[in-house]
Structure formats: structure tokens, C-alpha cells
């Protein structure tokens, strides 16, 4: 029961729709009272497990230092987000979440990146070497019929094969299945996600046909750059967390359409187990019962080798960590390595870090995974190489064509928070900040909507900046955003439909085509209140192997936003809705949304 309760309280990074905001310390573990609190930033996929272990630890005799109790309090924070915050000294707790004394990212590679960034800034490292306490390899998850079509596992499959598939104009037709359309890859943003970072490193190794010694010179080779761009070209969209893809795939599976959304997703092995168990995001919502999908996933262990997420438990060498906190954290670190607690690790689908615990259920072939795999591992590159790879990914990723569709209805003028700023003020600042995350080649347009906004048809929206490379019009878009003022009502459905139709008409197959919708209200348009009609139109536009997939990423802004409707709209386009019901979170949420491109 405790596991279930903690699972329900689990927070994920991002944050697509109904999950708790990342960085937020929830009260799932109760009141720490007078105990010394040790905050632990934990990557999202293992927050339920860590909170479970913390709950039993806090109640145990181990949770005591010099006669005083300690209280371990894990909270969810994406590995990349925590790495960025630590690199900057974790200065803004309001935006970044509680400053942690300990950290468990999905991979120790993030610690190396933090230390490298600190060194580049002339600062001392704060992330010491730490022991992993559970492991899970990066795999290429494929719907079983697709893996079968490639002959896996008898025929090894790797990133090079994915590049071949992505480049083949016949798509799946080359493997006897034209009905599946082109090859579509799902990959997360490596700046946020460990599986994204691992996939990025793995594809570089695949390009070079080596398993170690990735160098800065390697990354600059023209054929390596071509390989990387080729892989990225097959991406349907990015995202800050893998559950975005797996939830969409699961919904499509329920409709019998899982084979046309995505052909493969770079995820951790544990995600395949969760998906096949009917819990695609690893978090059970209230009342949710796990139901296995019709088409299960198969974990393809790349033939070139792969990387492991090694989940270190790190006590930060930072001046804000007291001796008592350090000692308490050390005790918790020992506690989670104990065999009985490592058995709990296994229950959650991870491979135990303590070798005394055997790898068994649920890591078995019947669940789509293979405990005897992988046969090769890839060396984690030097930190400066990883930092360079991340920088280069910003240029090599698939370009995007994005319409920013901003609600300027009257309610956006409501005061948000104590500073007197309105919701629109906060949103404007967040949107302007987010513009920097686009690469110069991305085409971005700005459209605002509100009832009777324009004197001419169409009256409900105005294109302030047409599509064009943002490198040339970043400042113009920012200037236009700065000048926005709140006006009338919210013709939500009309604005969405027309914007979506525009992207469909002007669809560019070599780009991620998307609408980012920021809205704080509900549809207030008596001329168009047909939600089902809109949902049907959006869904049909995304169906079929020759579809023109345009993604709609809504941000539900403020507590008046119609999150439920926005979620339906997003899911109809195989995208995700983001919850910014707390206006103060809008900067963080905007960042998460833009990570899809």
C-alpha cells in the first residue's frame, strides 16, 4: 500500500499534464518535525522507489546521527535540470526547486558534466565519484511486429540500421510493411533526459564504429555530422521525458494504431518493462489499473553496444551540506545498498547495483527484455566531449516549424503573485526567455488570439510575426511579445483549428511541425463550441501512414485554464499538455515545452 501511495504522489519532470511539478517537495513522507532534513534531488523514473525507501529509512534506527534524527526527503528533478542548476550554484530555489544535499541522477555522466561546467567557470568540483545503486541499460524500444520485421533478435539491430531505415524512401515498405509508413524515431532532448544523452553518445559511437575513446575531433568529422543529422531527421519530436512518447504510444495502441505513431523510441530498459505491464509512464494515476498493451514493445540492445544509466547516489561536496546532513546521507546511501532494499530495486524493474542480489523477475524475456544483454557497453566519454556533443546537438537536431499561439484574453490581465505582475507579464517574460532555445534555422511564427481581436476576417486572431527563421526575427518576436496586452474572450477552438490547419497546409516533412498554445481559460466562443468536432479533425489529420503529423503542445496557464480539454487536444495530436496552473512555474514549463523541438 505504501508503494502505491508513494507512486501516486510521485512527481515527474517537465511536466506534461497531470503529474506533480518537478522540483516540488511534496509531503508524501510526512512532517520531518525537528529532524535534520536531507533533500535529495532524484531523477523522475525512480522517485517512487526512492520515496518508498526513504519512508522505511526515516522510520528506522539508522536515521540517527549523534542522537539526533535525520529525515531523507527525495523529490523529483530531471537529471539534466539538476545538472544545470548545480552548475549555476542552484541559486533560484523558487524556479529550480529545493536545493539538495544529495543527488541521484539517472547517470553519473551528469555529475561529470556538472564538474566540467564548474571547471570551465573556474570553480571547484562538487560531485564526487559515487557508487551506483541500480542500473538499467539504454535500449531501442520497438513494437514487437516491427522488431520481428527486422529479424531481431536473430539479426542484430543497431543505430546504423536505424539510419538506413530513416534514409530509405520506401520506409517500412523496404521490409514488407508499407502500411507502417516511414520510419519514425522517438528521442528525448539530451539536455534534459538521460536516455536522450545516452542515445546521443551511442549514435556518435555507431557513426565511428568504435566503442570507446570518443573525442572532440571525432565529433567534428563531416561524415559523423551527416550520420547524426540523418538519425535526427527521423525524429517525430523530442521531449523532456520518455513517458511522453510511451503514453502517446499506449493511447494509440488502445486504438489499434500504435504502429503509425512511432517505430522506435530510445528509452531505458525499465521503461519497456513498465510499458508492457500496462503502466507506460511508470506512475499509476488514481484508479488506474495496469493493462498490458495489445502490441508489446521489445527492447533492442543496440549491436554497437550501449550505455547504462547507473543511478549513483551522490552526496554533494557543497558548502551548504552540513556534517550532520552528510553523515545522514551516508547512512541512507548504505541503507539503499542493503540486499533487502536492493530486492525492492528489482521490483521496480531496475538491475540491482549490489551484486549479491540476482537479476530476476521482472527482468525476463517474457517482458520484452533480456537479462543476458547487452553484450557490449560503450565507454562514457570525457566530460568535455559530452559538453561538446550537447552543444553540437543543438545544431544537428531536426529543425522545427513552430507557431506560438498566445491567448491574450482579458483574464490574462489578472494579477499573479505578490509582485503585482499579471499572468500576461509572467508569460511574456517566459516566452521571450524560451526563444533562445530555438536554433537559428527553426521557423517560428507568433499568433495571438482573443474574441474580435481584428476588425477584418479572421477576427479572432492576428498573425504578429509570420513564419521565418528565428535567427532573423528573434528580436522582432520578442518585441511583439513585450507589447501584448489583454483584451476580450477566449475563442480557443477556432484559434486552435485554424492554426492547426495552417500548419497542415504548410507542412514541411523535414521539420517538426507544431503549435505551442498558451491559454489561461476555457473556450468562450458561442460561434464555435464543437470540441468533439475539433478533436476528430485533429486526430484524423494524424492518422495513417501518409499523415502530416502536426503536434499541439498546450500550456494550461493559471488555475482557470481548461486543463482537461487542453489535454484532450494534445493527445489527439500525439503530443502532451503541460500544467502551469501555478503562474510562477511558467518559465520552467515553457522550457519543458520547447525541449520538444
Amino acid at each position, binding site marked *: 500500500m505504501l508503494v502505491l501511495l508513494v507512486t501516486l504522489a510521485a512527481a515527474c519532470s517537465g511536466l506534461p499534464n497531470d503529474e506533480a511539478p518537478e522540483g516540488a517537495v511534496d509531503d508524501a513522507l510526512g512532517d520531518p518535525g525537528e529532524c535534520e532534513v536531507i533533500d535529495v534531488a532524484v531523477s523522475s523514473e525512480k522517485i517512487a522507489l526512492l520515496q518508498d525507501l526513504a519512508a522505511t529509512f526515516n522510520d528506522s534506527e539508522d536515521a540517527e546521527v549523534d542522537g539526533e534524527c535525520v529525515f531523507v526527503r527525495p523529490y523529483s528533478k530531471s537529471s539534466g535540470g539538476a545538472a544545470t542548476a548545480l552548475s549555476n550554484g542552484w541559486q533560484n530555489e523558487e524556479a529550480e526547486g529545493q536545493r539538495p544535499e544529495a543527488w541521484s541522477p539517472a547517470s553519473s555522466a551528469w555529475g561529470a558534466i556538472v564538474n566540467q561546467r564548474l571547471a570551465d567557470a573556474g570553480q571547484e568540483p562538487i560531485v564526487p*565519484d559515487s*557508487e*551506483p545503486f541500480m*542500473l538499467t541499460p539504454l535500449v531501442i524500444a520497438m513494437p514487437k511486429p516491427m522488431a520481428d520485421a527486422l529479424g531481431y533478435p536473430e539479426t542484430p539491430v543497431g543505430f546504423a540500421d536505424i539510419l538506413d531505415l530513416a534514409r530509405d524512401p520506401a520506409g517500412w515498405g523496404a521490409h514488407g510493411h508499407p502500411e507502417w509508413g516511414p520510419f519514425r524515431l522517438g528521442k528525448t532532448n539530451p539536455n534534459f533526459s538521460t536516455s536522450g544523452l545516452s542515445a546521443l553518445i551511442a549514435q556518435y559511437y555507431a557513426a565511428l564504429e568504435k566503442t*570507446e575513446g570518443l573525442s572532440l575531433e571525432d565529433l567534428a568529422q563531416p561524415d559523423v555530422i551527416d550520420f547524426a543529422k540523418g538519425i535526427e531527421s527521423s525524429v517525430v519530436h523530442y521531449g523532456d521525458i520518455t513517458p511522453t512518447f510511451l503514453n502517446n504510444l499506449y493511447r494509440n495502441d488502445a486504438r489499434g494504431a500504435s504502429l503509425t505513431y512511432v517505430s522506435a523510441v530510445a528509452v531505458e530498459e525499465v521503461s519497456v518493462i513498465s510499458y508492457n505491464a500496462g503502466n507506460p509512464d511508470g506512475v499509476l494515476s488514481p484508479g488506474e489499473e495496469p493493462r498490458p498493451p495489445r502490441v508489446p514493445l521489445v527492447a533492442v540492445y543496440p549491436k554497437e*553496444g550501449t550505455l*547504462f544509466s547507473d543511478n549513483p547516489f551522490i552526496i554533494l561536496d557543497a558548502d551548504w551540506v552540513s556534517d550532520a546532513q552528510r553523515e545522514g546521507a551516508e547512512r541512507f546511501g548504505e541503507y539503499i545498498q542493503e540486499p533487502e532494499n536492493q530486492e525492492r530495486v528489482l521490483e521496480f524493474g531496475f*538491475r540491482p*547495483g549490489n*551484486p*549479491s*542480489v*540476482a*537479476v*530476476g523477475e521482472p527482468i525476463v524475456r517474457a517482458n520484452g527484455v533480456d*537479462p543476458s*544483454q*547487452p*553484450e*557490449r*557497453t560503450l*565507454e562514457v566519454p570525457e566530460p568535455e566531449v559530452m559538453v561538446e556533443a550537447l552543444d553540437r546537438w543543438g545544431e544537428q537536431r531536426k529543425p522545427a516549424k513552430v507557431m506560438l499561439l498566445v491567448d491574450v484574453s482579458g483574464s490574462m490581465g489578472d494579477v499573479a503573485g505578490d509582485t503585482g505582475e499579471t499572468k500576461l507579464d509572467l508569460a511574456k517574460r517566459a516566452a521571450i526567455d524560451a526563444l533562445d532555445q530555438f536554433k537559428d534555422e527553426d521557423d517560428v511564427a507568433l499568433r495571438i488570439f482573443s474574441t474580435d481581436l481584428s476588425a477584418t476576417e479572421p477576427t479572432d486572431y492576428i498573425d504578429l510575426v509570420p513564419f521565418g527563421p528565428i535567427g532573423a526575427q528573434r528580436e522582432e518576436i520578442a518585441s511583439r511579445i513585450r507589447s501584448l496586452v489583454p483584451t476580450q474572450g477566449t475563442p480557443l477552438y477556432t484559434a486552435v483549428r485554424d492554426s492547426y490547419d495552417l500548419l497542415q497546409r504548410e507542412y514541411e516533412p523535414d521539420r517538426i511541425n507544431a503549435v505551442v498554445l498558451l491559454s489561461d481559460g476555457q473556450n468562450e466562443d458561442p460561434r464555435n463550441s464543437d470540441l468533439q468536432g475539433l478533436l476528430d479533425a485533429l486526430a484524423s489529420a494524424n492518422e495513417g501512414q501518409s499523415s502530416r503529423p502536426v503536434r499541439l503542445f498546450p500550456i494550461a496557464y493559471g488555475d482557470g485554464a481548461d486543463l482537461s480539454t487542453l489535454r484532450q487536444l494534445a493527445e489527439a495530436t500525439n503530443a502532451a499538455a503541460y500544467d502551469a496552473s501555478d503562474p510562477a512555474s511558467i518559465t520552467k514549463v515553457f522550457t519543458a515545452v520547447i525541449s520538444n523541438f
Partner: protein
Amino acid sequence: MSRFFAVLAAITLIVGAVLVRGMLDDDDDATREGRDRGPVRVVCGSEVQAACDALGSAYEVTIEDTATTAAALRTADGDDPGIDVWVAPWPWPEIVDGDRERAGLPRLFGNPVTLGRSALAAIVPESIGPCDWACVGQRATDDLRVGGRPLDTGVGVLHLAAFTAGRLGTTTYASNDLDAATQSFVRGLADAVDGVPNPVTRLLQIRASYDVALTHRAEAETLLAGASEDRRAGLEVTYPEPVLSLVAVAAPVGDRSVPDGLGGGLRSTGWDPPSDAPSGLPTAGVLTALLEVIG
């Protein structure tokens, strides 16, 4: 009767005095002498941590990488280098003192106390077949993935010495035997061996990490015995020729005392007791030369 009680009281006082004296003596064992009478400071290399684990709380114990301690001690103040006893693989204290002498600094260490020994070993797949150190070293740059402690650290450099002994066919080589071809071999090994703090644990956690994990007998047997059956399946411990032994010593700074119990701590984790048998280890000077080769 009163005489009996007087004698009993006298005996009680004497026994009490002896006990109190004994307790004071015990405390003295863990207390530094001189003006600064803090607890005795013992630093253990991470490879010989078990020795320090046996010490009581009266000691100030630090566990750290041997090479890290060595780097600090090379230039430390001769009067108070910050530690009282260094527990490390031999001949690291001699390497430090040699470096200090060459830098014009006074030697730090008095006579070391030998605590235990453990043969250098490799954990390999059962399918590998006979392979001496020269073979493992050659194949490390060819078809075997080899994990070990970094070759410029405590036990790592001893494995490097073993590889070199294998290549040269003798354990009694000198630094001037390290010709260009041997130096190239040594540098190739430094690139080829994946340096991690706990190679055996890594191998047991992720079998695909390595084909071979460099270790020593006590560590290998302890970790394999503690691993689940599926993790240790297909692995075996080998002692490639020529056999060299890791020797743990406690080196006191000057004439300071070495705490009791250090050797017992090692033996509790499978180390052999000290012996007069040759260890096969090269001299500190040769190891220094090997360290210079790999830069």
C-alpha cells in the same frame, strides 16, 4: 578476619590500579605524543581499507586513494605531514620518500610494519584459456576489454608492474630494462585498461563491461563469494605468471607507533598473513619509472 579483609582490599586496590593503568595505556596507544595530543591519524588506501575498519573510534581514520595521499605527502611538512600512520600497498611509502629525497625534502617514514599479502589476480571468463600477464597485457590492446584500477594509482601500478614482468620474463627487472618497445607496451596498456575504482564490482554489475577485471586474491574471492550465482556464473579467478603479491604495510611517520589490529582487519577479509616469501614486486625506483612512462 579483619586481616583477611585488609588483604582483600589491598588486592582490590592493586587490581584496580593495574586495570586503570591498562586503560590509560590503551588510550595512549590512540593518542599522539608531543604538544598536539589529538587522536592518532591513520590514513588507509582504499585498497586496504579493511585494515582501518578494524580500528576503534579512538583513531582519526581517513580512507582515500593511495595516489591521492602520495601526492599530498610528496610535498608535506616533514615535522607534521598531517598523518601519523599510512596504511598502503608496498612500496608506496618508499616511492613517496624517494620523491621527497630527490626534491631535497626529508624522508617521512620509519620502519614499515608488514600487515598482510594477497596475490595479484585477474577475474576472467572460464573460456579464456591459459593466459599469463604478458598475454593478458597484449590482448588488452587487442581483443580483450580489461578493467582495473587506474594504472597510476595504488594497486593499479602494481598490475602495471606485473604486465611488465610478464613481458620481460622476469620480476627482477630494472628501470633501464624499460626499452622503447617496453615503454610503448606500457603506454598502450595505460590507454587500454579502463580505470575504475571497483573493477570487480563493475564486472559483476554489468557483465558486458569487461572480459577481464584486474584484482587481487582476497578481493576477488570475497566479492565472488558474495555475488549471486547468476552474476558470477562463467567467471574464474586466475593468477597469471609470474605471480606477484600485493603487500600491505603500515608506515609510521618517523618513530610514531603503529596501532594494533590493522593486520587482523585485513585477514578478516581474506588477506594472507605476512610471510618471508618473495613478493615479486619491483623496487620503488622501478615503479617510479613506470609511473613516469605513463605520464
